């Protein structure tokens, strides 16, 4: 089931025009009930009109022809603001298109607007935004998850059909899970990062959000591939994936630890039973010894890189500049006033672990553990086709609940960060609603460049769950 294909066939049959479709989505985006958008693309209706003409001429070619897409506000779209939800880039207008945006434009996608997020993608609740927190569409008192909260909401609440976000330590999967949609964190290097405002270069990946797995696949196929502008991007190996059922799936032992909310554990058991019953998979528990260090390692590596990546916001070339009499004063005031608390906390943490004298003890050691985590994952992936675990140890939590305690906020990412450290692909998928009506989702992890396996397996599961 693909909403993209359904809409394009409407165009092909001349039953509807891109202008009509985009207006429906735009209406909701303009209402902005959940504060999911930071800015809207003012030219989208004009761009839709161009496509209307093509429909009338029968020239429907792009794979995303007339499909409304929202973009996380840390991905550059030429001519649109790119704020990263930060005061420091409040008025920054992107001078070029990110590689993924070039690819979307080539497929005639319609960019609705730029979505809310945690400032510079640093956060798990979308509360650290200079443009205010976003709300969970299932319960406005609760957070949508972060950092790509706006992207997840926009897809969940039909403000956009697809969205692109970025995942550094769970920033696609967590909000996808909290908002009940799919969110894919591709293999590191599968998608070009050129034009994604860097948070932690060795962990960041751009990835898709969608309501249907087939649409995730379509969007991923379009954005993946080597880009000469990104030396960390790789040629994506094209191969046929034919899963042989029942698959062997490993369940992370920590999924059932006392840190995980009861209802998530019971749902996971339910999910496992369903797949066993349907003969889709056989399950066995597995362990990652260094799992408990993943959060610490993640925050050392991510903050170190962030402290350097965010150094350019100093008031000299672009963005917010504070008034002052001398250079050093200008740097200090600009950065003190321009960055939010969480960003400053991470910059300081990063600068600290890179200090000479501490570098070996923190950064170098963290990199060693990082390698160990990857090795453990790969070892388990020799035995299993897929690894299964929750996305978050909790259901979507209430706004403000974790703001005073950064460590408990960091622990929301306990199941997601290790995958980024390993560079492996992972996908968050919705399973059911909790008793209170909040989405519960899980994630699969696979080998490098095996996203196709997710798509095949989840198409089958989607059919079973939703018919």
């Amino acid at each position, binding site marked *: 089931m693909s909403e993209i294909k359904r809409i394009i066939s409407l165009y092909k049959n001349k039953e509807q025009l891109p202008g009509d479709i985009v207006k429906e989505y735009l209406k909701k985006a303009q209402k902005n009930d959940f504060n999911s958008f930071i800015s809207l693309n003012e030219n989208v209706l004009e761009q839709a009109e161009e496509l209307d003409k093509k429909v009338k001429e029968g020239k429907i070619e792009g794979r995303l022809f007339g499909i409304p897409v929202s973009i996380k506000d840390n991905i550059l779209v030429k001519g649109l603001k790119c704020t990263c939800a930060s005061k420091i880039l409040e008025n920054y207008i992107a001078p070029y298109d990110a590689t993924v945006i070039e690819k979307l434009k080539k497929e005639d996608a319609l960019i609705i607007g730029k979505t809310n997020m945690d400032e510079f993608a640093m956060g798990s609740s979308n509360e650290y935004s200079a443009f205010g927190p976003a709300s969970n569409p299932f319960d406005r008192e609760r957070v949508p998850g972060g950092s790509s909260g706006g992207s997840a909401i926009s897809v969940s609440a039909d403000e956009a059909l697809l969205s692109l976000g970025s995942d550094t330590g769970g920033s696609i999967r967590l909000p996808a899970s909290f908002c009940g949609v799919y969110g894919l964190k591709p293999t590191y290097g599968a998608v070009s990062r050129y034009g994604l405002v860097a948070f932690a270069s060795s962990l960041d990946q751009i990835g898709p959000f969608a309501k249907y797995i087939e649409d995730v696949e379509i969007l991923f196929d379009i954005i993946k591939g080597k880009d000469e502008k990104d030396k960390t991007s790789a040629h994506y190996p094209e191969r046929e994936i034919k899963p042989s059922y029942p698959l062997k799936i490993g369940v992370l032992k920590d999924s059932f630890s006392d840190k995980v909310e009861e209802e998530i554990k019971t749902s996971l058991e339910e999910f496992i039973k369903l797949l066993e019953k349907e003969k889709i998979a056989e399950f066995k528990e597995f362990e990652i010894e260094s799992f408990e260090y993943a959060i610490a390692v993640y925050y050392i590596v991510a903050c170190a*890189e962030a402290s350097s990546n965010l*150094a350019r916001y*100093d008031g000299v070339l672009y963005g917010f500049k504070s008034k002052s009499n001398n250079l050093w004063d200008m740097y200090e005031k600009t950065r003190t006033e321009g960055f939010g608390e969480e960003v400053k906390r991470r910059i300081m943490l990063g600068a600290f672990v890179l200090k000479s004298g501490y570098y070996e003890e923190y950064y170098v050691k963290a990199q060693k553990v990082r390698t160990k985590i990857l090795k453990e994952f790969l070892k388990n992936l020799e035995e299993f086709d897929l690894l299964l675990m929750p996305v978050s140890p909790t259901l979507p939590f209430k706004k403000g609940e974790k703001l005073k305690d950064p460590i408990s906020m960091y622990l929301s990412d306990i199941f997601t960060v290790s995958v980024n450290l390993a560079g492996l692909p992972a996908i968050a998928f919705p399973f059911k609603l909790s008793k209170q009506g909040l989405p519960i989702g899980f994630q699969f992890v696979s080998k490098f460049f095996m996203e196709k396996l997710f798509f095949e397996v989840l198409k089958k599961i989607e059919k079973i769950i939703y018919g």
Partner: protein
Amino acid sequence: MDKFEIKIGLEIHVQLKTESKMFCSCKVNIDDEPNKNICPVCTGQPGVLPSPNEKAVFYAVLVSRALNCRIPEILYFSRKNYFYPDLPKGYQITQYGISTGFGGEVPVIMNGEIVKFPLERINLEEETAKSFHIEGKVYLDYNRCGIPLLEIVTPPCFKSSEEAVNFLKSLRRILIHLSVSDCNMEKGEFRVDTNVSVNIKGKKSDHRTELKNLNSLSALKEGISFEIERQKKLLEKGEKIERETRLWDEEKRETRVMRTKEFVEDYRYFPEPDIPPFEVKKEWLEKELPILPHVYYQKLIEKGAEPKEAEIIISSPFLSEFTQRVLEKLPFNKVKGWILTEILQHVPDVESLKNLPFTSSEFIDFIGKIIEGKLPRHIGQEIIKKSMEENIPLKNLISEKVEIKSGSELENAIEEVIKENSDVVEKIKSGKVSAVSFLVGQVMRKLKGKANPKEVKEKIEKRLGI
């Protein structure tokens, strides 16, 4: 005996002469109007990523090979983090921990000898923007930002300003011979920072001063000498030498404090995550190195050149090779005047001499004709002048201008001159032999200079029986 121990270390930054910048495709041209050759990458816009310029890496490897450095199999870049307006990203991509070249040595020409001075490392990095201070305001030109830069660092191995300056001259010459940089100091393509530390022998101390703004070799020599004397005086008075950065004041001809180094900056280096480590390509290691200037120098000295003469020739890679080819056929003393005076007087800047209007074999033929007496010197000089000024190959000029008159044409001319100047002939016959040169001049005039004066003189003398 001198009671002082002098240690001088050098850190040289060299702009590489690549087409495009280190991490983007912007043109390398600092002479263009400000901020013309810029793009999102070299101005550090959010979201950009660096793509290393292979040519620049190759150049860094080439220099490392020429200077006998150890080159690792795998290279990577690191980030050097600090804030400054000329640094748009807030960090410089450079090398740290791993250098393109480790160790190595520079063959330096010192008083006619080749002396080898050690190197510590050669790093490849990116250039910063250029700032201008005009009427209290700072202006930034990002044309320079992102140009590939080599950082060449020596240990504190020099004992005098002469050694340091000779080292720099030799290093510059090598880089010019490798065609990796023009090393124009005025344009800032070759910049030198200096550490000077004077100690009383036997006493351990870690003080040193860093000298900046030494923008020419003469300023370097003077600045270092000044600093050595300044530190000596302080030591003699028993005073402490501060660890500081001092600026060379070109007008007052002295160094003064720029900043004290109580606070050591922490650059928070870490490996650049945007550029994966990469292998040093085999082809970079196998490409044939050009002959280095000190090798040319030694050959020239062997062939009898004076050190000064040899140094002039090796300042141009082209002239070095040209001269070497000529010397395969002809002795140095037969050609040195022609090369060093006749040719070079028409060249404004020997270092940048990249070609001549004639080949070495044409030149060899030309000199051969002069040696054989087929071509008079003075005409040879005119030919060189015309060739150089009008860019005409020598062989065209020789065939057009010089066909030495001899045989009957020459005999006839001599007969005519003798007839026309019977009075002079009488004088000669009566003993005033020196007047023969007058007759030679007349013959030459008649033949429009196209004769060999020596031959004419001999013929006249023979004809007159003297």
